[in-house]
């Protein structure tokens, strides 16, 4: 009886051994797959980083051009469609108002880069002397199709911010 029981317990050993071995192998395989997947994600995020950074940089240059690149700053001056444009789109540097609007001024640039990127800019000027200006540009790797506020639901969206003070 005892002998029989032992014999019975020994059954399934090969199966158990195979299952254990294959789970070890599968774990190794999944580990390898995870590493390569992470590398691809890392590569994609490196790309998004550049998209967002160049979007922010384009936005800063746009603000600098309309503030100090022309003889009189275009900020806080009501402008007609087509007067002020960056990256081929009209930018309103007066918060959309028909009368001179006080600082800060916000505008959105889209689409930038490969067509997916966009940027949000806030320009602030002090009213007392000496007048200082701050340009705050936030570039995003996606959201370029949103023409209102550059927002996107993509959880992998990358943001890069540039701040210029003068």
């Amino acid at each position: 009886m005892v002998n029989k029981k032992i014999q019975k317990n020994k059954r399934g050993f090969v199966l158990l051994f195979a299952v254990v071995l294959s789970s070890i192998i599968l774990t190794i395989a999944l580990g390898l797959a995870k590493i390569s997947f992470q590398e691809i994600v890392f590569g994609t995020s490196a790309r998004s980083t550049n998209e967002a950074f160049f979007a922010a940089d384009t936005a800063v240059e746009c603000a600098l051009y309309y503030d100090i690149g022309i003889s009189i700053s275009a900020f806080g001056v009501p402008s007609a469609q087509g007067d002020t444009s960056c990256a081929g789109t009209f930018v309103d540097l007066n918060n959309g108002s028909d009368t001179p609007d006080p600082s800060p001024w916000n505008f959105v640039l889209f689409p930038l880069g490969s067509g997916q990127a966009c940027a949000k800019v806030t320009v602030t000027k002090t009213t007392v002397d000496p007048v200082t200006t701050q340009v705050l540009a936030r570039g995003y790797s996606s959201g370029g199709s949103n023409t209102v506020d550059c927002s996107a639901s993509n959880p992998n969206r990358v943001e890069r911010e540039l701040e210029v003070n003068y």
Partner: protein
Amino acid sequence: MKFSLKQKNKGFTLIETLVAISIFTVSVIALLTIVSSGITDTLYAKKKMAAIYLAQEGIEYMRNMRDTYLLYPPNGTVGWDDFKVKIEDCNTDNGKGCYFNDQALDFNDQIQPIIDITISPCVAGVCPTLLYDSLTGKYNYTTGVNSGFVRRINITNINAHETQIYSTVTFMNGSVPYEITFSENLFNWIRQ
């Protein structure tokens, strides 16, 4: 009774072995598939990273050139105009882009070292392949082995004071072509 039990045991072990071998085979095949795709993906990720940095470098060279022309224009010239003349070969309207060779970059030129680099049009839209020099770790067009990366710079003049620059790097992974493009708009924001 004992005889029949033994018989039963024998048969089960055979099925058991077959099942075990098949499970083992399936897992080995899975391992081989995942390892081979893992190696391919890792190679792709490596090439993609290099391509991203090369494309970024392309934009930064053009930016540096714009900055140099604008901040240190030779006497009596308008930096922005000189910059646009320099990169005219890259204009999308004139053809299919250009490439730059920094071999002639001369740091003895204290004022405008960057403008010594040569910008050449890509003949018939085909840009030369970058060579990788393992001694210096630099990508160039003169020394080293074929890196498989091709960099093309394109510009589009949006208006008189704005230029859009595209830096595209193409590479092959196996037989599949890939492309990384970055783009930035440069403005003439320095009043002269």
